């Protein structure tokens, strides 16, 4: 593929707020088009640089093409993508910092959800005491937040083109770490502070959580990775401005 032509296309497509598959389609179609123009111009002039420049001009001003392409994405999809981008890793953001940011967001979000849920519970049922619920309002969001931290730390090396754990067995290994985290979470949810006798599900439920956590991690991360692999050559292109 011709990098100069790819850059011309990526300048148009990268800022567009659209689902990943839609953006990838735009890239492929615009690239096929600009490549055809380039071949046509090169046949006429025999000058690669001139053919490249003319092809870029013939494709149209990036701002205009981009605005028109953006107009084809429904507003509700744009809103969803903007929300999703808050949870995505920013360019050049270190993995640890990203994982901490995600876990803080998960902590705040879940704390608000639990506060709301318990508040509603107290309004509906007079038997629920706020004092009893306070440990849970802190405890559950912390567990939730920890799991998001583990997911972000384990998943990132596979979703990006670098990293020592890029291989398939790395995904399996990271899945095991997440499975262990899910099992530990399950144990905490069984509330060991109140055990007089170990409940029946003490080993069964964490084992199920471990297997389910591992399987889900490997499946989801692999699917995301397959989808990302198509767009990685484009997303990693350095645009001059």
């Amino acid at each position: 593929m011709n990098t100069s032509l790819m850059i011309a296309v990526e300048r148009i497509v990268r800022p567009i707020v659209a689902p990943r598959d839609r953006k990838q389609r735009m890239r492929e179609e615009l690239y096929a088009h600009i490549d055809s123009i380039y071949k046509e111009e090169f046949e006429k002039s025999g000058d690669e640089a001139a053919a490249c420049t003319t092809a870029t001009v013939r494709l149209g001003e990036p701002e205009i093409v981009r605005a028109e392409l953006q107009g084809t994405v429904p507003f509700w999809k744009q809103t969803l993508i903007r929300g999703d981008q808050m949870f995505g890793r920013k360019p050049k953001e270190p993995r640890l910092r990203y994982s901490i940011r995600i876990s803080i967001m998960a902590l705040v979000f879940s704390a608000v959800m639990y506060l709301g849920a318990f508040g509603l519970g107290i309004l509906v049922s007079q038997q629920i005491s706020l004092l009893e619920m306070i440990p849970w309002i802190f405890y559950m969001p912390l567990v939730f937040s920890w799991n998001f931290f583990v997911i972000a730390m384990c998943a990132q090396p596979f979703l990006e083109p670098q990293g020592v754990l890029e291989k398939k067995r790395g995904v399996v290994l990271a899945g095991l770490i997440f499975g262990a985290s899910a099992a530990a979470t399950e144990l905490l949810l069984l509330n060991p502070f109140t055990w007089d006798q170990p409940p029946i599900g003490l080993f069964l439920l964490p084992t199920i959580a471990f297997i389910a956590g591992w399987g889900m991690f490997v499946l989801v991360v692999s699917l995301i990775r397959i989808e990302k692999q198509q767009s990685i050559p484009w997303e990693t292109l350095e645009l001059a401005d």
Partner: protein
Amino acid sequence: METPIQGNQVRGHLDTMILSILEHEESHGFDIVKRLEQAGEGSLKLKEGTIYPVLYRIEDAGLVKAKWEKNNSGRKGPRRKIYSLTSKGRKQLEAGRTEWTQFVNIVGAIVGGAA
């Protein structure tokens, strides 16, 4: 030589023009632009990238359908999306032609040209 017509001057009619190009034969974006320019006998100049927003819009409206070109079509180069007219698109094309005729008749009568 006639002054070329730019793409933004035909913006409101580009959908119908593309449907008309696809009426008899399926085609990909680059070919659609070529055929539009040929039909315009050199007087129509489009910024070629702007054809795709129109294609996406009419595809979303169900007027055309698109499929990826098969890899074994014998051509070297990146794969392309092939567009073809749907039955809804054919109906829209007929409606577009009627609207165009009315437009030419009315505007032609006002500005003094022959319809």
